[in-house]
């Protein structure tokens, strides 16, 4: 059970044009396309269907397989719970009634929730395609090129690098706690809730001290290697014009659908 296996496998290596495309092109294109999806009004089913088409093309080109993509997109769907009350609170024509409670669901409410779910699912699919086809290092390089503060990009790099180290430390502490916390089946063990929270709090405090020590050793090692505060990348190849053209066509198609829906 390695922490790295969780963090490391988000990039799914395939031999495809989508994978080869530059992150400096893919990241802005994905962001703008999701922005286009966010502009779709409630109940605009044609627009949503048309917006799904370019995503399906990219998904097929990325050769990730529909099951792989579906599995990852489902992780983001439970959030819909916050929108579900709209079914009953949005005024409109009554579509159904909940038997015992006497709540009235409306057509307008159902439309609103279905639209939110569709927009959310399409957006998550775009994000999954970006994550699965782009190594995180390339994404961070793109963020730096797009003007994210150097300090923040550097911090995210180190978070990615050291999560495995600190996370493994945390896993060892959790294992140690569980080893000490023997319990008979069906019997209550381990004190009250506040006591358990205190144990976790002490583990957190201990992990903080260890992390601080670690960061000082890391800094000393970096200084020994000549770190001056600047992040360096081995090479920065030029962005290819073809990729920019394809990405622009992808984004323009998205906004054309939104504009067409507004005008129609």
């Amino acid at each position: 059970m390695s922490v790295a296996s969780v963090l490391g496998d988000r990039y799914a290596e395939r031999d495809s044009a989508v994978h080869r495309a530059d992150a400096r092109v893919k990241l802005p294109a994905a962001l703008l396309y999701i922005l286009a999806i966010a502009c779709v009004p409630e109940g605009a089913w044609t627009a949503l269907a048309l917006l799904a088409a370019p995503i399906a093309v990219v998904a097929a080109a990325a050769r990730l397989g529909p099951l792989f993509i579906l599995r990852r997109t489902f992780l983001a769907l439970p959030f819909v719970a916050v929108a579900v009350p709209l079914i009953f609170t949005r005024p409109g024509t009554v579509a159904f009634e909940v038997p015992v409670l006497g709540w009235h669901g409306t057509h307008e409410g159902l439309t609103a929730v279905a639209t939110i779910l569709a927009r959310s699912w399409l957006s998550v699919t775009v994000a999954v395609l970006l994550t699965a086809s782009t190594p995180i290092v390339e994404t961070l390089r793109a963020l730096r090129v797009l003007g994210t503060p150097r300090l923040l990009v550097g911090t995210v790099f180190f978070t990615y690098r050291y999560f495995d180290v600190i996370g493994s430390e945390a896993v060892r502490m959790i294992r140690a706690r569980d080893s000490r916390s023997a319990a008979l089946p069906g019997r209550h063990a381990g004190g009250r809730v506040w006591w358990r929270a205190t144990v976790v709090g002490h583990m957190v405090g201990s992990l903080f001290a260890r992390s601080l020590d670690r960061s000082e050793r890391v800094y000393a090692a970096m200084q020994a290697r000549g770190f001056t505060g600047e992040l360096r990348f081995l090479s920065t190849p030029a962005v290819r014009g073809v990729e920019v053209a394809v990405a622009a066509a992808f984004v323009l198609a998205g906004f054309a659908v939104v504009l067409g829906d507004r005008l129609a």
Partner: protein
Amino acid sequence: MMSIGSMALAPLGLGPVGPAMHIPDGYMSVPVAIAGWVVTVGVVAYAARRAEREISDRAVPLMGVMAAFIFATQMMNFPVAGGTSGHLLGGALAAILLGPWAAVIVMAAVVGLQALMFQDGGLVVMGLNIANMGILTIFAGYFVYRFLAGVIPGRVGALAASFVAAWASVVIGSAVVAVELALSGASPLGVALPAMIGVHALIGVGEGLITLAAVSFIRATNPGLVPTPGLAPAGLNGAAR
């Protein structure tokens, strides 16, 4: 926010998967999402400049490892009741231990990485998510802590203040998310606001207890690390260690 990292960590069997405060794409109206970016870009740029000036080139390894620490603490859950479990979210703790500006960078890194790698939170709404979880909860926690620790002196004051600060940061954060959802027409305010506040008033107790115990532990074992108001505790600049 209830599950920063829980999706990332669920495959490990360590994190609970619950309703999240990480808003996905598709819920927020475009103006609300853009307002979130405006706040985030401004505050993060200012925080980055301050951190670079005050802790110089040490800042990157320090804050990166601290963000990994916040990420990892979210794995440390404890059983509450009926198969549910509580775990730390970390905004107030980061603010108390690191000061608000460094904590903003640390939480922005955590929230950003969760969205980019795990789709835990959307991309267009990432600005809003960072504003909620990386800025609002930190300053709410920080000011409550500063105020209470100033009013009640000594150890008791610091510990009581860390409990209340952590509880308040979670509740305020959840209330603002409910308001933002209502502004975007994605959730009715009359239902969402009491529900979010009610649930998070309970979650906040766990957050408060863990934060209190962590601050108490660090005060006892590493005095000098907690918590000089300002950007970084003395120990982070090598003065106390």
